[in-house]
């Protein structure tokens, strides 16, 4: 036998860690903060999962600060917002949307109670900007500009700032003291308010532009639309805006009232009249199921004893000394009419009569564009703005109801418009563009529901209708802290990593590394299987094709 060189049997001598299995993959997991559908739906672009997470960890002030980076009025919006976040919430497809609105109110109220101050503005820029109109849109724009260090002056036509928030919302929906506290806290940042300072003409705006580097027009939509049947002067026919502004101090002659209109203003007026002890009817062109006021407000009004007639119109008014006789008909709205245009068609043989001592007009509102008619382009009674809220004049911006069609006139939309206008102004003044690439929000399919036991949604309760209709105290009762924490726990945190470690534990190749602040993929070993993506409860990691 040939003697070979010294050969001894080989046991293993090392580990497979040096083997590059990363070459196997064609896609790599990427951790990127993806927008949640609630944040995309929110007119302010609030990062809702982020502040809900702070709330859940009982870091309430931290949650509030995240909210107030964009929204200085969370106690207000927590009461008034139409919460599009909840309608787009992914949990809606599981066991009910997260009660974002109630949680926001909780933070807002707690801040007022605890006296938390808003964050101080950044370094002073020494540049002045004017905001015409002190309603929610104007105040929001002023707030963002102030935070950025600009000197802001708000020119308010009325006795004090607030707009709709001051004079258009009954106390049972928004207590005055809540708004006052949040307003004062905002003004304390150093925003100057000139009250009784209507800006009535283009010339005045040009004068403002001599002292201010830019102007934001937040004129609102404060002119009540008077239907032709009511185009006469009569003290018994009053505007809903005037009625609401009196906050229940303006009494109505007689025992009853009829409200014309089907929107939120109509319902507010009706329910205010109920609290004055009147029997109230609401006459709306729209069918009961399709009232612009929405199901919730409609149901509350009905519970309080308001009679609502949907699909009816006042054909003509018979003015008598003892009262107003309204000759009415059932109508159907012509569906082929363009949006925002009402074409009621009388239904034959449906005429009826209502006698009343008072008619409250709540049939729509428009902006008064006469001050700016020559300066800026307008269309369909609204100021035309681009996506940076700039008008046809580059130094004049606009936001709020003056730029928004009636169906979208919500407080949150106004606040959001104010933020966009402020960003537009800052971009114009600092000559920079901040266009963030759009990402699509996390869909429900990306949520791994295995990790979320069913927890029922629990909403704000309403006071008993019989009792609540006798005063202007708040109708809705917010959640307790215990229930709020349970509801906050229902947030999936779509697209926002919560460091739950699922990705780390489910990797068969140990290719997810837990760095101190975040996760990192070990590219030498990741095979691109996608288990981390599948087992992420909230779509915070996704597979991106590797093309090289």
């Amino acid at each position: 036998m040939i003697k070979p060189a010294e050969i001894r049997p080989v046991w293993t001598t090392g580990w497979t860690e040096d083997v590059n299995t990363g070459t196997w993959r064609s896609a790599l997991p990427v951790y990127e903060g993806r927008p949640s559908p609630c944040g995309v739906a929110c007119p302010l672009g609030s990062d809702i999962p982020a502040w809900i997470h702070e709330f859940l960890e009982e870091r309430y002030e931290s949650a509030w600060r995240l909210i107030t980076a964009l929204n200085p009025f969370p106690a207000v919006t927590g009461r008034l917002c139409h919460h599009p976040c909840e309608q787009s919430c992914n949990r809606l497809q599981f066991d009910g949307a997260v009660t974002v609105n109630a949680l926001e109110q909780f933070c807002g109220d707690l801040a007022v109670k605890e006296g938390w101050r808003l964050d101080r503005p950044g370094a002073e820029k020494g540049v002045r900007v004017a905001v015409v109109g002190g309603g929610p849109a104007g105040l929001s724009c002023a707030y963002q500009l102030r935070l950025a260090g600009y000197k802001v002056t708000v020119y308010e036509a009325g006795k004090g700032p607030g707009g709709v928030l001051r004079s258009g919302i009954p106390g049972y929906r928004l207590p005055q003291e809540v708004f006052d506290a949040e307003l004062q806290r905002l003004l304390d940042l150093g925003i100057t308010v000139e009250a009784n300072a209507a800006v009535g003409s283009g010339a005045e705006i040009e004068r403002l532009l001599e002292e201010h580097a830019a102007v934001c027009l937040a004129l609102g939509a404060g002119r009540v639309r008077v239907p032709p049947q009511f185009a006469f002067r009569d003290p018994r026919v009053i505007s809903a805006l005037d009625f609401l502004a009196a906050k229940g101090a303006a009494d109505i002659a007689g025992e009853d009232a009829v409200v014309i209109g089907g929107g939120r203003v109509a319902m507010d007026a009706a329910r205010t009249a109920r609290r004055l002890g009147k029997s109230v009817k609401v006459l709306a062109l729209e069918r009961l199921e399709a009232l612009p006021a929405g199901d919730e407000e409609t149901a509350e009004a009905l519970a309080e004893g308001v009679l609502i007639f949907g699909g009816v119109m006042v054909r003509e008014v018979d003015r008598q000394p003892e009262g107003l006789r309204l000759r009415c008909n059932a109508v159907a709205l012509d569906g082929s009419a363009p949006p925002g245009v009402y074409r009621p068609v009388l239904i034959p043989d449906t005429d009826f009569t209502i006698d009343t001592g008072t008619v409250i007009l709540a049939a729509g509102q428009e902006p008064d564009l006469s001050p700016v008619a020559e300066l800026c382009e307008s269309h369909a009674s609204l100021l035309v703005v681009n996506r940076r809220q700039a008008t046809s004049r580059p130094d004049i911006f606009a936001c709020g109801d003056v730029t928004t069609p009636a169906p979208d006139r919500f407080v949150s939309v106004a606040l959001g418009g104010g933020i966009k206008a402020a960003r537009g102004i800052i971009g114009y003044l600092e000559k920079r563009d901040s266009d963030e690439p759009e990402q699509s929000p996390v869909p429900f399919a990306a949520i791994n529901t295995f990790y979320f036991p069913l927890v029922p949604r629990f909403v704000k309760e309403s006071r008993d209708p019989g009792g609540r209709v006798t005063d202007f105290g708040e109708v809705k009762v917010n959640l307790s802290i215990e229930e709020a924490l349970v509801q906050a726990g229902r947030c999936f945190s779509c697209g926002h990593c919560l460091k739950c470690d699922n990705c780390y534990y489910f990797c068969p190749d140990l290719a997810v590394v837990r760095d101190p602040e975040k996760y990192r993929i070990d590219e030498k070993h990741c095979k691109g299987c996608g288990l981390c993506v599948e087992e992420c409860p909230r779509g915070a990691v996704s597979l991106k094709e590797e093309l090289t």
Partner: protein
Amino acid sequence: MSGEHGRMLLNGNHAVAYGVKLARAKVIPVYPITPQTPILEKLSEFQAKGEMTADLMTMESEHSAMAACISASLTGVRVFTASASQGLMLMHEVLHYASGAQAPIVMANVNRTIGSPWGFWPDQTDSLAQRDTGWIQYYCESAQESLDTVLQAYRVAEKVRVPAMVSHEAFYVSHSLEVVDVPSPDLADQFLPPFEPALRLDPAIGSSWGSVVNQDMFYRHRRALDRSMEEALAEAGEADRLWGELTGRAWGIVELYRPEDAELLICTMGSMAGTAREAVDLLRARGVPVGLLKVKLVRPVPAAALREALANVAKVMVLDRNFAPGTGGFLRQELCAVLYGLAGGPRVYGYLTGVGGTNVSPGRIAELAEETLRAGEPSFYSIWKG
């Protein structure tokens, strides 16, 4: 360890058990099969009486018994098992596995006929059919030789890291009583050092054994095994020499009995060698020049020793108590391969004697020897001679 030693009346199986006790085997996986059972019964008795510190594992088959031997051996303890016939066949896969792993296991095999049909008779086909599995193979003719060879097998196996099997035949050796000199524990300890392999399964070391290798590695494993087998030849001789010094009994890896001027050597293994010894004496008493060449170590084949023993002998008569259909006797085939090209080498006469356990008497062997002395050219097949 305690218990008796010195001269005792023992059968072959019990002698093996005493050998294993002296060797201080620690883990003993076993499965019973006739005619091996007295080995494990005796070991169980030693253990139960506290004479032996060993873990007897009553496995559910021979395959599992050998599997447990391999892994236990690789974990660094001395192991032992015993089997026969069907059991050995069932182990075939893992016999290869053991030598590939270079696990120094010692196994006693009681040569028994293989089915079908059934039989329990002495026949060496069972272990000879395993001669390609990479095990060292010894064949013993007596109870004393079996005891001695168990200890030698451990020493050689552990030095070269190759498993070893020690075979003796059913009943003729396994169950026959003879006077056996059982060495003292001190002598055994002197001869056989403790088993402490440097490479073993141990978390403190961390290495693994047995995973998939590439072609080049596999080739090198085989060359390493070849090298070890080659070393085993020298170690076997050395172990036997040392044993002879300690006990006065050196069996030799091959043994020549009365070879002087022999015109014919009778070549055989196992108990047949004992019978042939008597035949040689009968023939020599009549002046017939015949001697005995006993082959003890079959693997690794002691080629040099065999060529030297047969260098100037005219004829060799191989007695095979085994049979491979298609080729005949195993020993004849091995011998022919070893002798090929030997200048002045003998003519080889292969006979199949005692296949299936039939009785072969000294007289019959003598008769065959005389017949062969007169015979012409040998056949190149083994011839059935009963």
